[in-house]
């Protein structure tokens, strides 16, 4: 279980996250939602350890994450940043292989097991036919699949995704959400920053709602997602209905 205790982060006198206490339920998909600039990405970066908190700690199964080595941490938890950089000319297979880095010895190359894991990730994401293509020659949706495959190859129990659906058209967005559900069924715990509230409600089991660096609510969608919350967090007048297909709450702005 991933727990966050009294997490505070800020610089130059500005507090960005203020004493957050969060519990990420294990084996579930958690969505982080909130208006732009509310600290979602900062929270994700702090959990992954690329930002150091001023106060508080992030612990996984009771173990303080900042006490672990970079490599050990990378075997437990992976994060896909909002805009990762694609090196010119790198092939799909090479990029996905990068995910195996936490398991390599300092001077060693990929073992047979590493290669098998990479292959499995390629099959999982349907990229086998594209494995030798250059990533920068692929479409946006395919490219995002490559990054997901890299995270899959990293094979961590906890996966953090920072706005994975941005710049994707609806088909790829849905494809990506379904891929997340598939990963979840295999026992992965996912934390995802999402902008589309209806997608968050439909595909995620748990919502964390943030505003101005504080947690407003955290619970299952049907318990927290209501018009009062939307008014308070997004200053949005909306009515809530039940989605007839998935039977999850959805909002329609008025």
């Amino acid at each position, binding site marked *: 279980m991933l727990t966050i205790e009294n997490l505070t982060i800020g610089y130059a006198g500005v507090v960005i996250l203020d004493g957050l206490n969060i519990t990420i339920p294990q084996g579930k998909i958690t969505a982080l939602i909130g208006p732009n600039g509310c600290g979602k990405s900062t929270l994700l970066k702090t959990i*992954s350890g690329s930002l150091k908190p001023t106060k508080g700690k992030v612990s996984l199964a009771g173990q303080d994450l900042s006490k672990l080595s*970079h490599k050990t941490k990378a075997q437990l938890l992976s*994060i896909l*940043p909002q805009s*990762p*950089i694609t*090196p010119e000319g790198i092939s799909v297979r090479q990029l996905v292989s*990068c995910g195996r880095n936490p398991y390599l010895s300092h001077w060693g190359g990929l073992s047979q097991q590493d290669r098998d894991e990479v292959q499995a990730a390629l099959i999982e994401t349907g990229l086998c036919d594209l494995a030798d293509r250059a990533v920068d020659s692929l479409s946006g949706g395919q490219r995002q699949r490559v990054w997901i495959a890299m995270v899959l190859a990293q094979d961590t129990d906890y996966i953090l995704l920072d706005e994975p659906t941005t710049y994707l058209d609806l088909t790829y967005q849905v494809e990506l959400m379904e891929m997340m559900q598939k990963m979840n069924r295999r026992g992965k715990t996912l934390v995802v920053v999402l902008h589309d509230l209806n997608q968050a409600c439909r595909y995620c089991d748990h919502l964390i709602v943030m505003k101005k660096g504080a947690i407003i609510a955290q619970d299952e969608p049907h318990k927290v997602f209501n018009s009062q919350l939307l008014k308070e967090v997004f200053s949005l007048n909306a009515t809530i209905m039940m989605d007839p297909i998935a039977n999850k709450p959805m909002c329609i702005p008025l």
Partner: protein
Amino acid sequence: MNMYLNTRQINGFKALSLCSVGLIGFIISLYGQSDFLLQAGDVWRLISAPDNNDINQQIIFLLRLPRSLVACLIGVNLGIAGALMQGLTRNPLASPTLFAINSGAACLMALNSIGFGVLTHIPSEVATFAGALIGGLLVFLLGGGLQQNANPLRLVLAGIAINGLLTSLTRAALIIADDMAYSMLHWLSGSLSEVDWQSWSQLWPVSLLAFVLALSTCRGLNLTALGEQTASSLGINVTFLRGRVCLTVLLFTSISVTLAGPIVFVGLIAPHLARALFRHNYFLLVPASGLIGGALVCWADLLSRSIVPPAETPVGIVTALIGTPFFIYLVLRGKS
């Protein structure tokens, strides 16, 4: 699988061609352009039938061989240092010059030769090496090298500032010590004419150490190419990696500038050519940049002796003459 073998063979072929270009330059530079009319045959006889009384063989062994070896190795050093800098900052215009290593070395050397304070009591090589390290470390510390999430741009800005400071100090020293100005200027243009076996014995151990360090940073640099946050998520300690890369670049460049003065543009061009040949994998890029750098300086040194024989044009001027058009090409290509 077939595809994979193919790229391997192609890379092997490219590496072999690079080696041959370097080796040809190396051999020609052993006998080419000499007042003593040395010939390729003398080089061959030095290997097959060494004769201590043969003046041609002695010239090749005592003067030409150490010079060519040092020229090559300095090229290798600068090429690899450039590749590491570009990898770390993810900036194609970064080069070891950025680290104020050249200007630091020049500054302390100038102060040493005009007899400034305590600097008079230490040998000029030591002063130069210390200057290189001080310049580099200043940029590294000011550029936020020890901080988490330091912006690579900050390193560039720190480099420009420190470079400016040290260069003006050097100029001041040159103006004060007018009589030293010629030899200083010669050194400042990057020259291999003073190089001997002693230089070689100072150069290779440091270079070897730096090369091992460089290889140990390759995987980290490969992952840094995906962005620092991704690298960190994949288990790379980015701060530690940055420190190691900077130390390696410092070692490579300091020892080179101490022995031959600032030889410019090699650290910029070599990694670019290497990238055009071997793309993005630093395990290939690092040795390839070294090979290209070595061949480049070797040929540039040969050229420097051939432009107006018997006088020598400083090799740094030759590399600058080759490098400037290349630099302009890079900038123009970046625009389109």
